[in-house]
């Protein structure tokens, strides 16, 4: 009996290896290899050449040369980042914008997801469809559309003037307000979907039991609904927070000159300064900053999976 099961296990092995290898291969090819290239450029020095830097070391030049180069490696580009207030200011401002946007997203997304989960079962697929519908249009076009809505002679101002709410057109485009509007609009589905997924699973009999035992609805919400929706809250928040920190398109199109985000700083370092080494250093640091929330997210996911067992 034991013999049979063992041989079966042996036969399954190569396939099992393949299944395990694919994600690792994916990680290697699409994350570690590009990261290594960027990291290598971040250690090099800028030059007037094609490409515009002098490589810090060259693996093809032979082992002895490689070790000689290794001794001369400098982290001067990283030091430069600490010396100039611009970089940490834009890191901080990016994290701040991401934090505030995530809170706004949560405040809007939670009631929407809650309403969807509490709606009659027959409506739910339609409601879900409506949340996903914007993805049918290109993200870039939707952000451009906001320019038309928010600009001085745009739809919003015309409407407000027509209603009589304002006398002078508001300046919204090219300000941080426009950036928040753009971000909240673009990321809302990413907040609603995980929230909806966890709220829909919620066992309503628990709430009935609570009310039978005399628990007021608000208290029941905080004691039962919210804790059970927490995995969705965490998933939605990280799903929004992490990409917002590195956002470039929205601040570039809707933001003004006072909008500081690390994505824009990186762009100007790369394009205006032609400084590939420093922009690579900025990118490596950005990644390190994002690794912290990603690890926290992974941990909470693991816990949720274990709890699910």
């Amino acid at each position, binding site marked *: 009996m034991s013999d049979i099961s063992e041989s079966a296990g042996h036969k399954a092995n190569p396939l099992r290896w393949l299944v395990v290898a694919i994600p690792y291969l994916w990680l290697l090819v699409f994350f570690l290899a590009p990261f290594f290239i960027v990291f290598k450029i971040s250690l090099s020095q800028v030059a007037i050449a094609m*490409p515009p830097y002098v490589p810090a070391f060259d693996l093809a030049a032979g082992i002895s040369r490689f070790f000689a180069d290794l001794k001369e490696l400098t982290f001067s580009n990283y030091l430069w980042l600490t010396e100039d207030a611009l970089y940490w200011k834009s890191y901080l401002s990016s994290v701040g914008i991401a934090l505030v946007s995530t809170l706004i997203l949560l405040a809007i997304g939670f009631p929407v997801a809650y309403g969807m989960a509490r709606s009659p079962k027959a409506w739910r697929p339609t409601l879900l469809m409506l949340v996903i519908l914007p993805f049918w249009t290109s993200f870039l076009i939707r952000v451009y559309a906001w320019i038309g809505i928010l600009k001085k002679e745009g739809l919003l101002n015309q409407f407000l003037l027509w209603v009589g709410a304002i006398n002078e057109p508001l300046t919204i485009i090219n300000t941080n307000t426009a950036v928040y509007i753009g971000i909240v609009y673009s990321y809302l589905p990413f907040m609603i979907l995980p929230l909806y997924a966890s709220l829909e699973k919620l066992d309503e009999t628990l709430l009935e039991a609570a009310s039978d035992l005399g628990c007021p609805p608000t208290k029941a919400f905080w004691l039962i609904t919210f804790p059970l929706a927490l995995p969705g809250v965490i998933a939605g928040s990280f799903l929004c927070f992490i990409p917002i920190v590195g956002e470039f398109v929205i601040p570039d199109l809707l933001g003004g000159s006072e909008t500081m985000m690390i994505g824009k700083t990186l762009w100007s370092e790369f394009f205006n300064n032609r400084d590939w080494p420093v922009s690579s250093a900025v990118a490596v640091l950005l990644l390190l900053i994002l690794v912290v929330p990603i690890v926290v997210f992974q941990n909470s996911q693991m816990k949720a999976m274990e709890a699910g067992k």
Partner: protein
Amino acid sequence: MTIRLFTTVAAAAMVLSFAAAAEDKVVNVYNWSDYIDEEILTEFTAETGIKIVYDVFDSNEILETKLLAGGTGYDVVVPSGEFLARQISAGVFQKLDKNRLPNLGNAWREIQERVARYDPGNEYSINYMWGTTGIGYNVGKVKEILGEDAPVDSWALVFDPENAKKLSACGIYALDAPVETLRAALNYLGINPDSQEPADLEKAGELWMSIRPYVQKFHSSEYINALANGDICIAVGWSGDVLQARDRAAEAENGVEVNYSIPKEGAQMWFDQMAIPADAKNIEAAHVFINYMLKPEVAAKASNYVYYANGNKASQAFLNEDVIGDPAIYPPEEVVQKLYTTTPFPPNVQRVVTRIWTKVKSGQ
């Protein structure tokens, strides 16, 4: 009439003869947006049988990043002077084969001499267009705010905080091009506009900071529409773009009168140069294209459309009167003497320049 008939017949004959031989010939051109009369492209293909793939960019930075990364697939690109100089030293371009450019004799010597500062001996590039960086203004509104004697012929119109403050109510835009805006400030301050000293550039940055609260936006193309619609009063911008705004306003008959001024203190003269990347695949076709653009009638057609001066002396006979006769496009000799050209910043100064400009734009 007979001449036109003859050229049509000749062109048709050429199309027929070339069509078979040059079926696969193609040239990939990468030029600035809104910078050519598209008829030129169809006529080029009709005459030479070479297919043209025409692609556009809107900043030197984008072009340079692509060129430095290599393998762009473009056969002709059009960078501006300082960028060209840096790209030449980075080894981006190949020398032109002047034997394949018989129309080179049409070039304007004076422009070639000025361009030699960026491209010594004119070995790598041919001028497409040149222009100045000055001030576009709404004639009516500026007079209304600053009075009849408004200093429209001076950089003081923008750089004097008193004026900028008054004009800010109706709107000031400026180019988002530090290399040019900081030089204009240096020139206004009486410092050599070609200074490479970080201390001087800091002073230029301070001047911009003093008028920063009154500048609504730094952008390199939106001012065309904003000026034409009468949304703004002042734009620090490129000559041809302001003149396009002037014409759009005139066509719209919206009562807006736009004018372009080369300030009396002087202004930057810039050059957009056609060049062939070292890794271009269709070198022969690229030369044919550049040679075609050097034809007097073709260069004139391009200038008549985009309102920029070209570097083609022979084309001047074919220019419309509102182009050749406009001192904002073809400035008289005494104004040309006051136009300055500048050399590229070395990398460490470039870094300072970008930093100063980021500070100006973000206002902190």
